[in-house]
């Protein structure tokens, strides 16, 4: 013992900073017993609605024909999958999620990089204003967009179009999905900015200085240092936004009601449509289960893609 502490190692090159993590095998013990109440509660919370949905999805359950609740097997699934709204619903959901993610991440990175780089009076106010749309209820913001901005007669855009002598566009009628994408992006961009702005501040200044000495200009620093540094917060933004964007409903309900036709119907709206407009609870339940499956597929893909990024430590 004495010799090992006396001899100073000459920095062994094979040594690694990270220690091997040895996990104990899980055993059933008091800890298991102690967490069981909360686990049981959570299971109950999840299992009861899920099993009810499963039950509803295999029976005939239409609010217009009460009492005729006989077992129909997978018929509800068949009808939902072959419904005229199903394919547009899936496609619209994917377009909505994909484009809002793209817009909020790209613009979010650029805006927060700009905020970090620029030093001007009133930066604090600008930050608050950039983040504030996030705190407005979806219904309210959708109504504001519908009546004050998109409205073909009284909207701001109509006024601009008229000022240039052009025919005002009926945004929600002619480009329903794109209009909704813009509304939802406006709501979720602040979230991306909030996360990315905070992350930006934690970038080590000495790394930037080292890069400057290495001959990197602002663009090279952004590309080689800032973006890799933001990989993890971007992953967080994508994960969280995906969860919420899959279930966008209020914006569609208040603006286009899924129309014209199915042009702006997403999966969540389609299920609502089945349950509460066509009163077919059975089919809506089947749709709900399909939505659960799709959400899980998306979750698995995301975790595969981004999970490594989240758990990897710098």
């Amino acid at each position, binding site marked *: 013992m004495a010799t090992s502490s006396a001899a100073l190692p000459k920095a062994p090159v094979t040594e690694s*900073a990270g220690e091997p993590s040895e996990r104990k095998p899980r055993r059933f013990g008091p800890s298991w017993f102690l967490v069981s109440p909360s686990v049981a509660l959570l299971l109950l919370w999840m299992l009861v609605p899920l099993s009810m949905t499963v039950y509803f999805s295999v029976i005939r359950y239409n609010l217009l024909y009460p009492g005729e609740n006989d077992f129909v097997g997978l018929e509800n699934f068949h009808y939902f999958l072959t419904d005229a709204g199903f394919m547009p619903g899936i496609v619209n959901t994917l377009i909505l999620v994909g484009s809002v993610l793209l817009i909020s991440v790209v613009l979010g990175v650029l805006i927060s990089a700009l905020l970090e780089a620029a030093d001007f009076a009133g930066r604090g106010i600008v930050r608050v204003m950039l983040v504030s749309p996030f705190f407005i209820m979806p219904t309210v913001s959708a109504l504001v967009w519908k009546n004050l901005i998109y409205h073909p007669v009284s909207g701001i855009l109509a006024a601009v179009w008229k000022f240039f002598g052009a025919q005002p566009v009926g945004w929600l009628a002619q480009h329903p999905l794109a209009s909704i994408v813009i509304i939802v992006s406006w709501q979720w961009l602040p979230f991306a900015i909030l996360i990315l702005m905070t992350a930006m501040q934690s970038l080590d200044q000495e790394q930037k200085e080292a890069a400057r000495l290495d001959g990197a200009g602002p663009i090279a620093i952004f590309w080689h240092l800032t973006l890799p540094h933001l990989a993890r917060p971007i992953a967080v933004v994508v994960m969280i936004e995906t969860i919420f964007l899959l279930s966008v409903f209020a914006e569609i309900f208040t603006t286009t009601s899924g129309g014209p036709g199915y042009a702006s119907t997403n999966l969540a709206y389609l299920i609502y449509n089945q349950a509460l407009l066509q009163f077919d609870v059975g089919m809506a339940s089947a749709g709900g289960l399909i939505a659960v499956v799709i959400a899980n597929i998306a979750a698995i893909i995301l975790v595969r893609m981004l999970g490594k990024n989240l758990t990897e430590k710098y």
Partner: protein
Amino acid sequence: MADLKVHNLKKSFDGNDIIKGIDLDIRDREFVVFVGPSGCGKSTLLRLIAGLEEVSSGRIELDGRDITDVSPAKRDLAMVFQTYALYPHMTVRKNMSFALDLAGADKQEVARKIEAAARTLELEPLLERKPRQLSGGQRQRVAIGRAIVRNPKVFLFDEPLSNLDAALRVQMRLELSRLHQELQATMIYVTHDQVEAMTLADKVVVLNGGRIEQVGSPMELYHNPANLFVAGFLGTPKMGFLKGRASRVEASGCEVELDAGCRLFLPVSGTTLNAGDPVTLGIRPEHLNRGSEGNCQLTVKADVSERLGSDTYCHVVTGNGEQLTMRIRGDFTPRYGESLSLTLEAAHCHLFDSNGVAVGQSLQLAA
């Protein structure tokens, strides 16, 4: 060639002067250490040379070329940071090649340079690792490697060892010394640790409050400090100071009457003192002796002692309350409060006038 000249350099932040006019001449292949207490402006001076801060006024020249307003990357300098500042998502190899890749250097040439630097720094097995998989010392070496591959005229080190543990620091200090010999490079090194300054430097620049206090070789500064600040800053334990008065001034020296209660004749040449001027006498711990033989004998009271095995540092208090430290070989330990008598080696005393400036030339260097 790498001659760096700094002319009347000044820097202020928001009206606060940090660097108050610095003139400095660094010659090719010199190992120059900036040392000083925290807040003395040593890091700022280095950053000004690196181009990371803008100069308020003054001029920096490298080999006759004015680089005051040249961008950091084009100054032919490389810097090693205190926190290493490695790019966390790049491998060691990529970290080292980053500057060359940006400059669009030839791939094979880059690979060759990295291999050479890795060999010098014993980094070869680590080239494909990420910085987080490395220990502190290895990260430090990668940071140095990143500087080496650029083949700069001057290497800048900003407190590079302060994040390492004591044992590793000693080892890296030796490696830096060796590296300086191998590369035959000009290096500027900032530290607050006077041991690093004394052991590494060809030339030490002692800074205080944004000004240079003294420039010289480590031994020059140690044996011949220009003023009270340098005298008190260099050396562990610190030099002891005794207040007194010049009682008689001659061509061959000066007699000092200490307030602590003794008289001694110091062989300092060329003094500008007049009899009766207040002076401060400085004496290092190793030049205080126990015993009563000598021409200046002080009676002191023992304070605490620190025993290191080979030596004992006895802290003592003179009759008029001045603190001294005495270095004694072996493990002699006086009782706390015990009365001791000690003598000063007149040849090794330093004399400072009322402005804190060293008086005359101490004769021991010439001897």
